[in-house]
């Protein structure tokens, strides 16, 4: 029995529990405006057809051409949950809760293995859709906002969030004219809003837009008018990005050979 006790007692390893970085930390360290990492995160949000992806693409091109150290990431299902999502969608077994959790698991993987390490490594990360997509869409589906806020507590908060806003009809027509075949969940058919997919999509997008509008102030969205001319809007976007994020921090150093060598 003493042998066992000797083995079990040197358990002060359990004290390591307090020292180990506990996970939903990045956001909590943010209250004083500082980040526990040298990188920066810029995200775009908005309903489908609001013009956000085009604008982020142009911002990315501008920075890429300038040689900035950046990484682009999308709110897409990765390999990790692809089979589960496919299984769930095919049999239409996804509920608001499991739909939300699968996306969160997928995002957690991207966050822990990609976004957070890149931010720690001093990258400028550009994200096409971020946690607010989940907040808006899953709240529209009936999940509790408090539950969702807790669920994504491990995500680093953006330094800058652009919210692209276009009138519902404009945005929806942009999508419907170019992509006539809407998928079941994409159209929000699981909510039983309408038997007509296009009509269901319209109503669902409207619900998502109300959720975005509700978050705009509390989550410091920079609201962008998605009906403006593309190049004018991009000019504005670049200006704001330059004001709000210390871009020169991510610019290549002219003479720093070591810096250049370390770049991928």
């Amino acid at each position: 029995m003493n042998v066992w006790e000797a083995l079990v007692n040197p358990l002060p390893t359990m004290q390591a529990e307090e020292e180990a970085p506990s996970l939903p930390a990045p956001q909590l360290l943010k209250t004083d405006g500082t980040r526990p990492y040298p990188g920066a995160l810029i995200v775009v949000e908005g309903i489908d057809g609001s013009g956000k992806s085009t604008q982020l693409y142009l911002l990315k091109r501008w920075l890429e051409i300038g040689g900035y150290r950046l990484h682009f990431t999308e709110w897409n299902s990765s390999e990790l949950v692809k089979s589960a999502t496919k299984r769930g969608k095919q049999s239409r077994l996804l509920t608001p809760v499991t739909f939300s959790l699968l996306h969160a698991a997928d995002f957690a993987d991207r966050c822990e293995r990609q976004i957070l390490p890149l931010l720690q490594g001093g990258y400028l990360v550009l994200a096409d859709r971020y946690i607010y997509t989940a907040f808006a869409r899953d709240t529209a589906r009936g999940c509790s906002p408090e539950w969702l806020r807790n669920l994504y507590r491990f995500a680093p908060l953006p330094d800058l969030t652009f919210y692209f806003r276009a009138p519902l009809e404009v945005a929806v027509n942009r999508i419907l004219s170019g992509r006539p075949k809407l998928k079941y969940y994409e159209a929000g058919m699981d909510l039983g809003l309408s038997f007509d997919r296009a009509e269901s999509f319209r109503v669902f997008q409207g619900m998502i837009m109300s959720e975005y509008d509700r978050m705009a102030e509390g989550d410091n969205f920079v609201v962008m008018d998605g009906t403006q001319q593309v190049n004018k809007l991009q000019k504005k976007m670049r200006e704001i990005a330059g004001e709000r994020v210390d871009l020169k921090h991510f610019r290549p150093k002219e003479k720093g050979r070591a810096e250049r060598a370390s770049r991928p």
Partner: protein
Amino acid sequence: MSRKNKPKSTATGRKNGRGEMTSRFYGLPIPGYKDEEVGGSLIVLEGTDGSGRSTQITLLTEWLESQGFAVQTMGLRRSYLVAEDIDDLLANNAVTRMTLALMYATDFYDQLEHRILPALRSGMVVLADRYIYTLIARGVVRGIDREYMHGLYQMALRPHLTFWLNVRPEVAFEREFRKSHAISYWESGRDMSLSSDLFRSFIRYQSMVKKEFETLGRRHTFVPVDGGRSVPEVNQEVRERIAAHLGIRSTRYRPSGALAAAWR
């Protein structure tokens, strides 16, 4: 609800021990469900690896069925949606703690919505081989914030009875070793780098989980059961508690020939 199988006890979830009104759900109900629709009885067996849970569940199922109760079981990694995907992730060790925690949450809620709630609605007895407590404990020992984990399972149902089969890690080790003649990567918590010595790692990991169960037991009023005793002794104690809960008069039970081997 089928009258025949309706548990005779007052449907708990109305009042807790202090006479306060409580919901069947810990926090908010699952979207689309109402509290009063949930009948039946949810009975949970918790305990670390090698605590004898699965054996007891098999025996209890037979006993309850012999008493005329319809039984549904649940456990970890048994969902249609993501069980296979979790198996793959575990096999490849290619997963981070947060992603794994969220995949397990998806697995849990898929079973809750598609298996447990339908069973409870039709008045069945649900026997859970592990529940949210194992999942919370595993997350917490890996450094995920305790309140985060509790928030994640806010929409779980409160069990009517939760048994905690408490065994010392060294007993668990012996049983697990006898069962499979090897100790698995995850059972010994090797992802946590506690010790390169497999045996020490197992003891430390299981001790950490056990400690977390003690914390959980205070918060959620577990019925502690000394799991170190023989199968018939443990079964007797658990049976008596369940009989009292369901209003079964006789607690006499002898396993059928098919299960006789487990009865020692």
